[in-house]
């Protein structure tokens, strides 16, 4: 155990290694702020999902007995189980391969294997190390766990001390439940390491992200209460019976998690026992585990080489879509709006704000990641007969173009849900969306080159401070432009409201149209400035 803490401590130290500033002074940067910056969008998402679940489940806390089914569970439990199964499976398929990637990718593994360190220790340290980035779905279980006792407790009219007690039980069972998920994923990782190489594992975790996205959209669609057909009672009861048998079967760990939260001591005991058995197995199996990549060799002859007319773009896109993290960042801004579409809250203004906030931050992040792909093999890209400035700048424009395309897709989808007006509004919004995307990507790239000697092995390339600055900029500009713009659209549609009733129409237009226009012009000016500064930094770069 002390060896494990030692390994984790040094892997952590390696991550927060002080960076040198431009005067060569060592700068301390906190790892926590880096983690925080990365998880902020996930947290926004989690809170949003929490609210969504609360609104949905509140109305679903109907005991199944009301339908004539003999069970102590409620309708809410069925839907919650579906979400937990989905999240659990997603966690498993993304986390297990990522442990392998971490283990095989790390230069330390080879060195550690020659040292008198237990194999289970090496494995566990790789597992903890990779938890951070796969933790998204675990994070989403927390709001579910918190909401459950609130709704369930409310329905029982519990007293305050009772409520507190049930919260403590909830936290412990949540930890036990997460412990089971972790343990099962560790077992999965050990199993997969027998036949999977580094690249195959990377691909699998990429597929998992795809699966997750589909799942979110599907689940959000599915849990909408108005999708439940209550007109045909018999069919409904039958469906519920089938669902109950499957999603709340005692073979699922979450059944016992829910049981424990409802006060069943046996369920609680089962959770504890499951943990003990799983971790004992992990300990046993890691002892004779093969920790060196065993990817198999493909011997297939390539007969015709395809030379593209834009080899740089082709290569950049390949690398972008092959990296699970960047693929996820690319698709993430679409998930939110799609959930909104399916839950019926279709408001292009709100979608624009959410999309813009996420996309503009991720656009800069993606540019930096693409620049990092070249930095990993630096200075070799300087050998190409291409202007290095052009090489770098293409990295800025690719994410912008992709996100602008995504926004257009959303706009077209919104047309089918809410008509022509929404389409036009979205098209007008495309201009500020583009400008904000360009601006934040430029800022991201400039930040990178201000301090270009970064650790290529690290996942969070930008420091916490830089990340938060970028997020702040995207929030301020998104809100500053889109709130007046959407107010303007309401104003045009249904006349003056709120404080605008008391002001003259000229002043109203001046405010509602003036502020966004002013910000847009400011952004254009800032883009030019950032672009110039970036050019200067790139000239100096060697």
């Amino acid at each position, binding site marked *: 155990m002390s060896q494990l803490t030692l390994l984790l401590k040094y892997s952590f130290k390696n991550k927060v290694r002080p960076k040198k500033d431009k005067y060569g002074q060592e700068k301390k940067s906190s790892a926590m702020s880096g983690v925080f910056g990365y998880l902020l969008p996930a947290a926004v998402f989690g809170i949003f999902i929490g609210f969504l679940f609360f609104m949905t489940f509140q109305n679903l806390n109907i005991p199944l007995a009301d339908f004539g089914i003999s069970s102590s569970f409620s309708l809410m439990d069925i839907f919650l189980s579906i979400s937990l199964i989905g999240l659990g499976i997603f966690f498993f398929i993304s986390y297990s391969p990522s442990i392998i990637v971490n283990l095989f990718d790390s230069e330390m593994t080879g060195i550690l294997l020659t040292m008198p360190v237990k194999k289970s220790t090496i494995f566990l340290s790789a597992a903890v190390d990779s938890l951070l980035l796969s933790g998204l779905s675990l994070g989403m279980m927390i709001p579910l766990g918190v909401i459950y006792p609130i709704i369930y407790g409310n329905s029982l009219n519990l007293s305050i001390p009772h409520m507190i007690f049930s919260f403590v039980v909830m936290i412990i069972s949540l930890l036990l439940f997460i412990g089971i998920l972790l343990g099962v994923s560790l077992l999965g990782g050990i199993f997969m390491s027998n036949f999977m*190489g*580094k*690249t195959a594992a*990377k691909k699998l975790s990429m597929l998992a992200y795809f699966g997750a996205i589909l799942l979110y959209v599907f689940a959000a669609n599915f849990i909408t209460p108005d999708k439940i057909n209550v007109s045909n009672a018999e069919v409904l009861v039958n469906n519920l019976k089938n669902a109950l048998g499957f999603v709340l079967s005692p073979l699922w760990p979450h059944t016992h998690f829910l049981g424990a939260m409802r006060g069943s001591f046996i369920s609680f005991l089962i959770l504890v026992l499951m943990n003990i058995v799983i971790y004992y197995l992990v300990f046993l199996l890691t002892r004779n585990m093969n920790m060196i*990549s065993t*990817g198999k*060799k*493909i*011997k*297939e002859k*390539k007969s015709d*080489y*395809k*030379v*593209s*007319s*834009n*080899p*740089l773009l*082709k*290569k950049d896109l*390949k*690398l972008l879509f*092959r*990296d699970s993290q960047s693929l996820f960042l690319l698709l993430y801004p679409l998930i939110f709006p799609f959930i909104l579409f399916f839950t019926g809250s279709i408001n292009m203004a709100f979608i624009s704000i959410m999309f813009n906030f996420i996309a503009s931050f991720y656009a800069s992040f993606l540019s930096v990641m693409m620049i990092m*792909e070249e930095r*990993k*093999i*630096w*200075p*070799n890209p*300087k*050998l*190409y*007969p*291409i*202007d290095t400035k052009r090489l770098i700048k293409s990295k800025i424009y690719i994410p912008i173009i992709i996100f602008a395309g995504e926004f257009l897709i959303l706009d077209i989808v919104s047309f089918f849900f809410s008509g022509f007006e929404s389409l036009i509004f979205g098209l007008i919004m495309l201009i500020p969306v583009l400008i904000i995307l360009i601006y934040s990507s430029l800022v991201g790239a400039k930040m990178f080159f201000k301090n270009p000697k970064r650790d290529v092995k690290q996942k969070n390339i930008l420091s916490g401070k830089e990340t938060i600055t970028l997020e702040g900029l995207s929030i301020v500009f998104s809100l500053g432009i889109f709130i007046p713009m959407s107010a303007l659209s309401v104003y045009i549609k249904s006349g003056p409201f709120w404080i605008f009733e008391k002001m003259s129409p000229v002043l109203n237009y001046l405010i509602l149209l003036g502020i966004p226009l002013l910000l847009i012009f400011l952004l254009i000016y800032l883009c030019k400035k950032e672009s110039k500064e970036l050019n200067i930094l790139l000239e100096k770069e*060697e």
Partner: protein
Amino acid sequence: MIKTINLTKNFGDFAAVKNLNLDIKKGEIYGFLGPNGAGKTTTMRMLTGTLNYTSGSVIINDMDLRKNELKLKSIMGVVPDEPKMYENLKGFEFIEFIMGIYNCKKEETQKRFEEICEAFSIDFLSNYIGDYSHGMKQKLMVSSVLMRKPDVIFLDEPTVGLDARSAKILKMLIEKYKNEGSTIFLTTHILEIAEKMCDRIGIINKGEIIAEGTMEDLKKLSTTGQNSLEDIFLELTGEDEISDIVDEI
């Protein structure tokens, strides 16, 4: 073909390369020999346009490197000291990328590449580069350069990581390219390579050329009548007292 005039590189206060004057003829194999940290890679990077120099100039094919960078880069082929390539590309995708970026004539280049693959027994092109060993990467890197048949070829310690067979094949390929008119600049710390392959050898130590010439010229320089390049090299780089050092240990 390759000419430098007072080429100098400082890293802060430290002079890695000092007033280097090289003059390498077309069709020549020039060996740049020196101990670790002598400044070989630094020189190579300046000659290939990946490192800005502090002062002096580089002239390749009668053109100033600073003024004709892109034009010169397209006639150069460089095997850098580390075979770093995009890990998430497959071997053949990297080759396609290189063909595209240098605007190669497809049929001709592909034919040459396949011949080189045959010679090096490269059979891992459908795997991701990230899964290659160092030697596999080095072979791919060398082939991606040689398939283009560049006019000027730079190789930075090219045999590092190659097995004996592949190293031998590489040496034969370099001879062949030289005979077909390419100019070759290669750095090495392996004396045997310099001795057997190079038309002329420059010995660099602490950023300065301390001796230059054919093997015959260098032999004449030896004060103690040494005949092997190893002894001459150790004498010139001031490391001839190594036996004393070893005894101390």
